[in-house]
């Protein structure tokens, strides 16, 4: 259900814009394209005010007034100059582009670290998921907007507005200053649109200079969709239908994305649809033609309604807990004590095997999963809920839950799993003689085997350290077993210490480490194992190896493992479940022991601790972490889970199809293939591209989160920002971002949003200018063209100014705000006797790089850039990132995360694989000599023109 709330929320926010469009397009009969600019104006004003510390709600009010001013501007142009409405709108919209830029100061203003209006809602959240809660709040807001608009349209002023749009002649005849009414209507409309812009900026977490593009189209689409759904002409329905239209539009987009439709087609669909409807409404004024088109119109309406029906039914289908009801739906409850590796593995294996046994959640089974997060009180609450919930069967994972369950639930069949010893908790007295409603899978770690494993790697073992929680019966049991084993051995002494909570673990570990121990031997204990990180630190620091029973802990730095593979526990439990559901009495099903063992070693830890290990010592191990961190996993778990459904899904999100982004992607994918990662980590990589559209980008980001990807990889700053806002949990690795600090993702290299890390790639300005000096010892002047609208370009120019001075150049600059102006700018610089031409990090120039290079080559001016591939477009020399390498490096970070490192612990480093590309053919033509020293540093040479 929650999946769709993001779309609903966007729909409500954009509905303000739809109401604005309704006021102009439907009420005033005026297709106002100003909204493409005023939407951004609202976002820009709200964002910049918030960064200045203004209250977010006040910022929205000011955004509204700013929007009104833009509408007044269009109104004045339209009425005073008597030019067509469309042209008036275009004029103002284009002017607004510059104004918005001035307001923002740069092309993108991030808001991630600032409060937004949505934070106001948070304290009152009664415990709903954020998106759901926002939806509740926004619905109220939407209802207010609806009522206010309808009431306004019924006032004398509102009537006048409507009559003016309806029939300006009649309006004039009743004494209305029609010009004033147009200005007023445009002001209100653009005010609302700007308000929507302000909201959307706060919702998505940034304002961007481009975000308004297509606003008119979306507004019209919303109005038209709403109109098609509701045929009534009543005022309140008309406004309501605009709101619904906006929401439906977002749902359709979300649905289309969800179903895997390409965003490009979506845009085409929207514009064709709007075009058709505009056309039809035009001919509908002409009766004869209308007759002809009426039939077709019906078809379109039918088509649209069926699209809606499909998405609505999809929505219902997706959200209903039972998709296809069969004769009998089994209610199965899973209760787990805490989040820890072996319990999780048990559950996953159980679920997987259930699937194999054809118990499918949502079809013939309803599987409810509850986790007590390590708290006994919660366990009891959960059990209360289950007792009254009419479940057919309960799976209890771990000893504490089982212990509580067999006391509380005496009628419901219980299967336990991953319980060390069911006999000490009173589940039975032998495998066959047990409580009538209880059966399950168990097994304790054979303490002796764990001790022998420890001794095989630590031959001089005299003292072994152990921690346990005396409050848990299974911990005490496991400890006792170890005590016995050690007593039998006779040569080793046990240094045991009790702990009561995970916060005590580190202290206790440190204390024991002082007691001259040669190894930690940790018997299974929920608290100790879940706080293992703390022990691992002490262990590594003191070079005392740790041995335990949970293979998951090897990655965290344990040395050796002897334990059960709890996958078996889950599988066996699932098979028991089937027998019970098939009618076998649990009483007659004997307890079973787990039937799979894991032996593991971490050679990386061994190396760090300087403990020598010979291959024959681990020849029969089924889980090995090699010195370089790679894992050889032959456990049942790996074979059962990883190969099937625990594949890891990676969303690879590029904002557009620009060359650097596509190069990054290619580098990333090539390396994935080269290293065979798809197989090794069982990766599934889904590529997403927003086609340079912000609203689509937003939907893509929401879609990634709701589709529960395991990892997110983004290339480009906008993709990074969109995902950073939408997601604070899924590990997210970014690349091809010039400056993540400016983008608001991180304060410092180490202090960044927890789930996000990656690499920054700043243009190598200093080395480029140094190189220029080397190649041209006598050059005096560098010409540079850049677009002040691009934050990145501005930063590069700033640096160039500094280093030009350092290397003794004079810098002359010219600005270009679009690709067409680039030529003029270059020509103006050519008139100023420049020796070298340079551009860096500027997208506008990069769009025209071919022709710029040609222009410069004709005038014998060497052209340097920071985009590696520009030599292929005719530049003289480039120092740039090989974005394929940037992509590959981004993958390296992902691999570190896949191997268990946490994103929050990976600092954001600058990665600039500096490569020089030299156009030797051009140099020869220009008769420029390049020294051998320089040639040596060149990594790629172009030899023919």
């Amino acid at each position, binding site marked *: 259900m929650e999946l769709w709330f993001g779309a609903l929320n966007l729909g409500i926010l954009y509905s303000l814009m739809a109401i604005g469009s309704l006021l102009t397009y439907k009420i005033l009969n005026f297709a106002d394209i100003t909204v493409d600019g005023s939407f951004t104006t609202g976002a820009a004003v709200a964002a910049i005010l918030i960064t200045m510390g203004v209250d977010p709600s006040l910022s929205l009010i000011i955004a509204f007034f700013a929007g009104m001013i833009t509408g007044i501007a269009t109104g004045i142009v339209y009425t005073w100059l008597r030019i067509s409405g469309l042209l008036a709108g275009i004029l103002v919209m284009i002017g607004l582009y510059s104004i918005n830029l001035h307001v923002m100061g740069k092309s993108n203003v991030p808001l991630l670290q600032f409060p937004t209006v949505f934070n106001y809602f948070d304290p009152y959240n009664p415990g709903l998921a954020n998106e759901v809660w926002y939806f509740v709040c926004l619905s109220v807001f939407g209802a207010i907007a609806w009522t206010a608009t309808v*009431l*306004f349209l*019924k*006032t*004398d*002023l509102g*009537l*006048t507005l*409507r*009559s003016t749009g*309806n*029939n300006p*002649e*009649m*309006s*004039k*005849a*009743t*004494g*209305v*200053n*029609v010009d004033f009414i147009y200005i007023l209507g445009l002001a209100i409309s653009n005010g609302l649109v700007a308000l929507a812009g302000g909201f959307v900026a706060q919702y998505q977490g940034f304002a961007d200079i481009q975000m308004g593009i297509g606003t008119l189209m979306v507004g019209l689409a919303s109005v038209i969709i709403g109109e098609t759904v509701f045929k009534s*002409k009543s005022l309140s329905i008309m406004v309501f239908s605009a709101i619904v239209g906006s929401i439906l539009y977002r749902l359709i987009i979300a649905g289309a994305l969800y179903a895997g439709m390409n965003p490009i087609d979506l845009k085409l669909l929207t514009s064709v649809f709007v075009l058709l409807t505009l056309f039809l409404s035009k001919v509908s004024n002409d009766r004869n033609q209308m007759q002809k088109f009426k039939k077709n119109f019906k078809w379109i309406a039918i088509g649209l309604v069926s699209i809606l029906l499909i998405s609505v039914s999809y929505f219902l289908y997706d959200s209903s807990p039972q998709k296809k009801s069969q004769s009998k739906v089994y209610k199965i409850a899973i209760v787990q004590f805490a989040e820890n590796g072996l319990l999780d593995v048990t559950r996953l294996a159980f679920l997987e095997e259930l699937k194999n046994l054809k118990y499918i959640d949502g079809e013939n089974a309803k599987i409810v999963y509850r986790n007590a997060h390590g708290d006994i009180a919660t366990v009891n609450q959960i059990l209360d809920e289950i007792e009254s919930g009419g479940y057919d069967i309960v799976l209890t994972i771990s000893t504490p839950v089982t212990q509580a369950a067999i006391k509380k639930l005496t009628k419901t069949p219980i299967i336990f799993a991953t319980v060390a010893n069911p006999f000490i908790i009173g589940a039975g007295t032998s495998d066959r003689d047990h409580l009538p409603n209880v059966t399950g899978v168990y097994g304790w770690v054979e303490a002796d085997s764990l001790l022998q494993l420890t001794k095989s790697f630590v031959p001089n073992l005299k003292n072994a350290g152990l921690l346990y929680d005396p409050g848990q019966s299974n911990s005490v049991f496991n400890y006792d077993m170890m005590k016995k084993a050690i007593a039998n051995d006779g040569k080793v002494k046990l240094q045991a210490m009790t702990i009561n909570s995970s916060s005590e673990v580190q202290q206790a570990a440190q204390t024991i480490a002082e007691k001259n121990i040669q190894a930690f031997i940790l018997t299974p204990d929920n608290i100790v194992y879940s706080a293992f990180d703390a022990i691992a630190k002490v262990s590594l620091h003191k070079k005392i190896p740790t041995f335990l029973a949970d293979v998951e802990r090897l990655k965290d730095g344990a040395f050796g493992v002897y334990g059960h593979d709890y996958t078996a526990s889950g599988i066996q439990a699932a098979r028991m479940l089937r027998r019970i559901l098939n009618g076998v009495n649990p009483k007659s099903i004997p307890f079973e022991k787990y039937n799979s063992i894991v032996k593991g070693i971490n050679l990386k830890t061994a190396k760090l601790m300087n403990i020598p290990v010979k291959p024959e010592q681990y020849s029969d191990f089924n889980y090995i972490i090699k010195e370089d961190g790679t894992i050889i996993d032959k456990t049942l778990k790996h074979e059962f889970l990883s190969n099937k459904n625990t594949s890891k899904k990676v969303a690879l999100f590029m904002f557009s199809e620009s060359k650097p982004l596509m190069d990054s992607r290619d580098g990333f994918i090539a390396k994935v293939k080269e290293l065979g990662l798809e197989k090794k980590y069982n990766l599934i990589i889904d590529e997403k591209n927003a086609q340079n559209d912000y609203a689509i980008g937003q939907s893509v980001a929401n879609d990634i989160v709701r589709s529960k990807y395991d990892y997110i990889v983004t290339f480009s700053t906008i993709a990074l920002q969109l995902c950073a806002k939408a997601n604070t949990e899924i590990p997210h690795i970014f690349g091809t971002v010039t400056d993540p600090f400016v983008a608001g993702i991180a304060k410092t290299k180490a202090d960044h949003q927890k789930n996000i890390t990656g690499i920054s790639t700043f243009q190598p300005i200093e080395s480029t200018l140094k190189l220029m000096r080397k190649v041209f010892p006598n050059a005096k002047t560098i010409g540079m063209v850049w677009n002040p609208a691009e934050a990145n370009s501005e930063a590069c120019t700033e640096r160039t100014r500094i280093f030009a001075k350092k290397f003794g150049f004079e810098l002359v600059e010219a600005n270009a705000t679009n690709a067409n102006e680039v030529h003029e700018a270059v020509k103006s610089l050519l008139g100023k006797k420049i020796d070298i031409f340079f551009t860096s990090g500027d997208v506008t120039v990069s769009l025209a790089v071919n022709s710029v290079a040609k222009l410069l080559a004709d005038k014998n001016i060497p052209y340097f850039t920071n985009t590696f591939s520009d030599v292929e477009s005719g530049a003289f020399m480039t120092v740039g990132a090989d974005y394929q390498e940037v992509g590959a490096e981004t993958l390296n970070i992902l691999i570190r995360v896949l191997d268990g490192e946490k994103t929050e612990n990976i600092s954001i480093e600058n990665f600039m694989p500096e490569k020089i590309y030299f156009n030797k053919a051009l140099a020869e033509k220009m008769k420029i000599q390049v020294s051998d020293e320089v040639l040596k540093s060149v990594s790629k040479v172009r030899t023919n023109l």
Partner: protein
Amino acid sequence: MIKITNLHKKFNEGTFDEVYALRGIDVEIKDGDFITIIGTNGSGKSTLLNAISGSFIADKGKIEVKNKDVTKKPDFKRAKYIARVFQNPFLGTAPGMTIAENLHLANMRGKSRKLWISLDNKHKAFYREQIALLEMQLEDRMNNVIGTLSGGQRQAITLLMSVIQKPDVLLLDEHTAALDPKSAAQLIRLTKMFIERDKLTTIMITHSMQQAIELGNRTIMMHKGKIIEEITIKEKAMYNVDDLLDKFANIRKIEKLTPELLNEFRNNY
């Protein structure tokens, strides 16, 4: 009530399609006058009405309404005194709005529009009463949008709208021309009724000689931007349709002559 002196208007002045539509109009209209205007096509009748209502600003001359000089005032300011009904039934009403809303808008003619909902039940009841005067069974359709009504019904509503708040001057520009004979007759009956009821000062353009003779106390004949003939109420009693048509025929004959010949012709008289 209205005094027009030496009024001139040229459209598209100085271009290839320059039209000299009004060439010095002088006329005085007294309180309570009901004037009918007849004239050839393109003689400037509509232009004269538009000049009075302020659709454009005249090139030369003066227009006074109630002794106030309104020559330079924009149309929406003159609407306070002047109500009008156009020939085209689609022009006088807002088709997307209800009958009640249209009447309400008309009732606010010349008043400022507030951010307040004033179309209440009291007003609605009043509009219902008024619409009943049309005898078209529209009383129960007050909340229907005008777009669903016939041309005759719309034009009747437009007429009602123009008199719902008594105007100082009522301008009617061939307001029955686009209707079928039955609807036209009904509309004329209503027009007469309202004008007599409120003693409205009225200027009405018509192409029907019958109407020109039957209605009003004065008739003006226009040709080529000039008033060429005025027929007083006394004279009207003596005229019949054929006489009027004769006059037209004469004008048409004259029209066939070139301007030079016309001048010669006049000089000879």
